[in-house]
Structures are given as structure tokens and as C-alpha cells.
């Protein structure tokens, strides 16, 4: 049995919304798990059930070997960082950190020690006497983290804690959270709708869609081997290109080109997925791209254009190649890195 176990967990809200469907998931001690998915897919609901802030409609959740379905959130020994931080506005930073410890009847000196240690770790020692309203976004973020860390809980829960920060700070805090988690070693679940955040933070990640875990795995597994159209489209930036096609006897025909001897026995309508970074320029390549627009990022160029059938398409090439607007490129798929999905079910078939 692993550290946190979800078994067939379902959540139906009183108004009838089915937010989570029969989800099962195991998280090991010390693991950094990320739930990623579009807004409204049920990630927060799942997290809040672990915290005890939402009732579990069906299924079981156990933490550290104990069934916690009926355990009150205050008794679960979990800590949560909220999107808006939910700092206590009338208490100074010190008391924000100390409050949870006081409620657990810990003596004053131990509290002081713990708060000071946590403050040092998060570099907020200088602000201990300030009220949250006198802190910057990044500092508030740290206080929220401190409040979680200081209690030394069994599990950290993060609900999109970085989405209120500006882009630069977000990247910085992302890094800090990862470092901190590695240092403290607490089992963590992190919820986000940002796939870059998910990829960079996760030991393992769960891609959630419509209340179902579509795929579970390490970031690289999921990037290399998406099991469904949804996962393929959600993970990776810029997004994977999708083209309509049809398979007959191991031959895939798409608009304008064919791929022979594919690794699939599937016959019928499919969607072909190709990542922009898995293409290279050759003579007489499979795909002809008419360039509309080039975004130069320095390290890379993102080339946007259209195929013969006016379908939008993106190609990513090293930044040192110069590509003219309006030119025609001939592209090949590198190392047969393409993905084929059943058009009706969205399931991967190669």
C-alpha cells in the first residue's frame, strides 16, 4: 500500500455536477505529483477531497495506511496552499505561521523555534512582524508556503498557487517550490492548468480531463508517449499538429501525402499528430508548408503556415536558420515520431 491511496473516488456535487469519476491513484511517500488539466476538469475537487474540504461521494481515500474518508480536515494533518494564498489578514506573518501550531497545543518555545526555522528557509525572517497586506505577491506566496511547512504535515496540497504571480516571478517561485520540496521531502500534490509548470515540477503527473485521469506517468513518458488525443494536445508547447487521415492496410493517407508500413492494425478514420519539434527540412519531404509567419525566440524559430488544404501547421527549427515569410518548406518527420489516434474515440492506435 502506498502513502496516499485513492480508490474509485467519485464526486457528485449537490447540484448534480459530476466533477470526478471513479478515479484511482496511488502516490508514494516523498513524491511530487502534479494534477494538470484544463479549467473545470475536476483537479481542485480531487485535491479538496484529499484535504477533506469536500465530501467524497463514493470511493475511499487513505493516507499513511489509515482510511480518512470521515476524518475532519483539522485532524488529517495535511497543509494546503491556496490560489489566493488565504493568508490571515489580521495576523502578522509570525502569527500566520504560528496559528496552526498554537491550535495543536504546542508550547511557545517550540513554536517560536519552528516558525523561525521555516521563516529562514523561506527567507521571510525580515517580515515576521508585518501584516500580509504589506507584502508583495512573491512574499505572500512564501508566507503561504511557510504556513504549510511549519506544521510538518504528512502531505502538501497546492491549488494553482502560482497563477496570481507575474510571469517572471512565477518561474522563479516554480523553481523554489521544487527545490524546497526536494529539501523538505514532503509528499506533495500540485494542481495546475499550465502544462509547462506541470512538466517542470512533477515527479509524476496526472493529466485530467472531464473528471477522469487520462494518463498518469512521468513528464517524459507523457510527452513521448501520449495515450490519447487529449493528452497529446494538452502536453507540449507549441501544441502538436493534428491532421485528418485514413488507414487502410497499414498505409496512412493524409491530405497530400502517405505514410507506408505503419505500426498499427487499425483501419479507418484517424487523426495524425506531429509535434512541431519533430520535423526537419529536406528535399522532397512528405509535407509542404507555405510560411505565413515566423516567431523568432532566439534559441528557436516557430514557423507558422498552411498545408495544401489550408490547414494550419507549426514547425519548430533552431534559431540560426533563416526562414522567409511566404517561402515554401519541404518537411520530413524525424525518426518516425508521429502519433496516430482513432478519430472516433481519441485513443492512440500506433
Amino acid at each position: 500500500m502506498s502513502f496516499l491511496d485513492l480508490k474509485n473516488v467519485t464526486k457528485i456535487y449537490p447540484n448534480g455536477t459530476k466533477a470526478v469519476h471513479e478515479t484511482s491513484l496511488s502516490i508514494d511517500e516523498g513524491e511530487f505529483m502534479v494534477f494538470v488539466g484544463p479549467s473545470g476538469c475536476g483537479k481542485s475537487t480531487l485535491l479538496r477531497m484529499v484535504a477533506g474540504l469536500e465530501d467524497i461521494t463514493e470511493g475511499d481515500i487513505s493516507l499513511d495506511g489509515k482510511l480518512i474518508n470521515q476524518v475532519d480536515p483539522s485532524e488529517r494533518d495535511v497543509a494546503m496552499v491556496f490560489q489566493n494564498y488565504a493568508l490571515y489578514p489580521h495576523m502578522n506573518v509570525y502569527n500566520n505561521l504560528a496559528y496552526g501550531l498554537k491550535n495543536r497545543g504546542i508550547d511557545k518555545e517550540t513554536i517560536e523555534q519552528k516558525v523561525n526555522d521555516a521563516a529562514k528557509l523561506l527567507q521571510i525572517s525580515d517580515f515576521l512582524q508585518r501584516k500580509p497586506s504589506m507584502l508583495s505577491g512573491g512574499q505572500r506566496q512564501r508566507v503561504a508556503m511557510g504556513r504549510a511547512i511549519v506544521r510538518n504535515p504528512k502531505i502538501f496540497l497546492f491549488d494553482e498557487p502560482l497563477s496570481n504571480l507575474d510571469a517572471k516571478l512565477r518561474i522563479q517561485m516554480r523553481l523554489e517550490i521544487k527545490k524546497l520540496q526536494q529539501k523538505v521531502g514532503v509528499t506533495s500534490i500540485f494542481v495546475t492548468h499550465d502544462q509547462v509548470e506541470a512538466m517542470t515540477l512533477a515527479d509524476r503527473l496526472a493529466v485530467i480531463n472531464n473528471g477522469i485521469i487520462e494518463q498518469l506517468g512521468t513528464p517524459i513518458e507523457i510527452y513521448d508517449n501520449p495515450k490519447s488525443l487529449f493528452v497529446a494536445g494538452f502536453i507540449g508547447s507549441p501544441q502538436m499538429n493534428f491532421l485528418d487521415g485514413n488507414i487502410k492496410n497499414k498505409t496512412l493517407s493524409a491530405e497530400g501525402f502517405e505514410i507506408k508500413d505503419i505500426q498499427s492494425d487499425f483501419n479507418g478514420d484517424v487523426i495524425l499528430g506531429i509535434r512541431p519539434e519533430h520535423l526537419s527540412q529536406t528535399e522532397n519531404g512528405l509535407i509542404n508548408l507555405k510560411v505565413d509567419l515566423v516567431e523568432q525566440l532566439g534559441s528557436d524559430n516557430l514557423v507558422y503556415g498552411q498545408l495544401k488544404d489550408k490547414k494550419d501547421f507549426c514547425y519548430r527549427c533552431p534559431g540560426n536558420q533563416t526562414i522567409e515569410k511566404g517561402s515554401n518548406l519541404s518537411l520530413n518527420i524525424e525518426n518516425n515520431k508521429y502519433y496516430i489516434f482513432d478519430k472516433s474515440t481519441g485513443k492512440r492506435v500506433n
Partner: protein
Amino acid sequence: MKIKPLQILAHIILILGVLLMVVPIWISFASSTHDTVTILTEGMKFNIGEYFSRNYNEVLNEKGGWSEEVTAAKMFINSFIMALGIATLKVTISAMSAYALVYYRFKLAVPIFWLIFITLLVPLEVRIFPTYKIVSDLGLTNSYTGLILPLVASATATFFFRQFYRTIPDELLESAKLDGANSWRFFIDFLVPLSKTMIAAMFIFMFVYGYSQYLWPLIMTTSEKYWTVVMGMKIIFTESYEGVALPRTAERFAYIILSMLPPVLVVVILQKWFIKGLIQTEK
């Protein structure tokens, strides 16, 4: 800095407002330092007279009433106790009932809230006879409990607290829960400090309400020991002159000035709290 005509106009309006508030009080005070005869013959006064200490001494120490049992000082104390009791209980009870209505999402919360709200339509004056019956059946006439108890429920304050609590983000409660706070702790450690301003404002408001009660104390007190300021204003300092009851106007002015002190005191004490809360937005 150049002064714009609009600013001058604004100041004129403000000064007029201040005069409107201050002049009547000044006239009352100035008149309270004269002789009744002077006021009756010459009208109200703007200047300070010579009878300050005599008039105020009489007001505080002279026994009045039908049976000459009560002094004005005693009535101030009675009113102060009554107002303090009403304000304290009103604020406590409304804050707690609003807490129940907002945070315990039981099915009847909304109907119950509206039921409470409807009681605004039946103030004490409307239900005074049934109230009197109950209070007298409980044997509470001529007691502070009897003066205070029928007035302690407040729909207005419940409404304001409810509206305020609803603006507090849910995450605060959730976060507190995860930090091990039970319902009672959340109320004491969060809602009370966060609604400090509100509590101060409500307290002032309710204190003045309690202090200026007239009909209820008039009906439920038969013993002069429980007379209140507003009742006394009509009754004491009356002199019989050739069979006609004549008011002792100068003493009455002194009485009015003194009767304003307790509410003013409450405002002065609480306004610091009140203004501090207004300046620091802590949400």
C-alpha cells in the same frame, strides 16, 4: 496654492453644517448656566451665565419624581446600564446568529434569515402589550433584566453582520480548518477581529438606540429606582406655581447637557477603533 471657488463653496457648506450641529448644543449649554426666570423672560441665551455650579449641582443631587426618590445622577446610571446591556447583547447575539446563518449551511438558513428580517416590521412599540405581559409574568418588571431583555434581538445588526461575513472568502475558513481551528475558534480568532469596525459601529448605534428608549421603560417601571434619563426629562424639575406645573427650564437644560455625556463618551472611546478599521483594509 490657489483656492478654487468650488473649494470655497464646499467649505461654506461644511461650515454651515457644523454650525447647524453645534449651535443648538451651545445654546443649551449657555442657557443651562442662567436662571430659569432669565430664560423665561429673555429667551434662550448665547452667553455664559452665573449659575453653572448651582444648576448642575441641583441636577445631579436633587431628588425628584413623585415620591422624591430618584436623582438625575441615578437616572443617568440606569440609562447607561440599560444601553450598555442592550448594545452588548445585541452585538453579541447578532454576530453569533449571523455566523450560524452564513457558515452552517442548513436548509432553513434562508427562511430563518427572512423571518428574522421580518421582525423589523414589528418594533417593540407595536408588540408592547404582549411584551409587557411576558415580562411581568416572569416577574421582571422593575429590574435591569426586564429593561434590557426584550430589546436584545436585532434584525438590523444580524443583517449587517451577515452581509459582512458573506464577503469573507471561503478559503479563509478552509485554511483555518486545515490549521486545526474548530467553529468556535474560527469565530473568535477570525470573524471577531475581522469585523472589529463593524462591531464598533454597531455598538455605537445600538447604544444610542438603547439610551434613547422611552416607551418601554415608561411602561415597565413603577419604581422610581429604575427610571431612565429620557423618562425623567419630562417628569423632573417641574415646579408648581399657582396650581400650574411649570418647568424649571435652566435645570432642564443642564440635565439635557449631562444626558448627552454617556453616548458621547461611548463614541469617543470607540471611534479610534472604528476609524482604525476604516483606514486599514484588512481583507
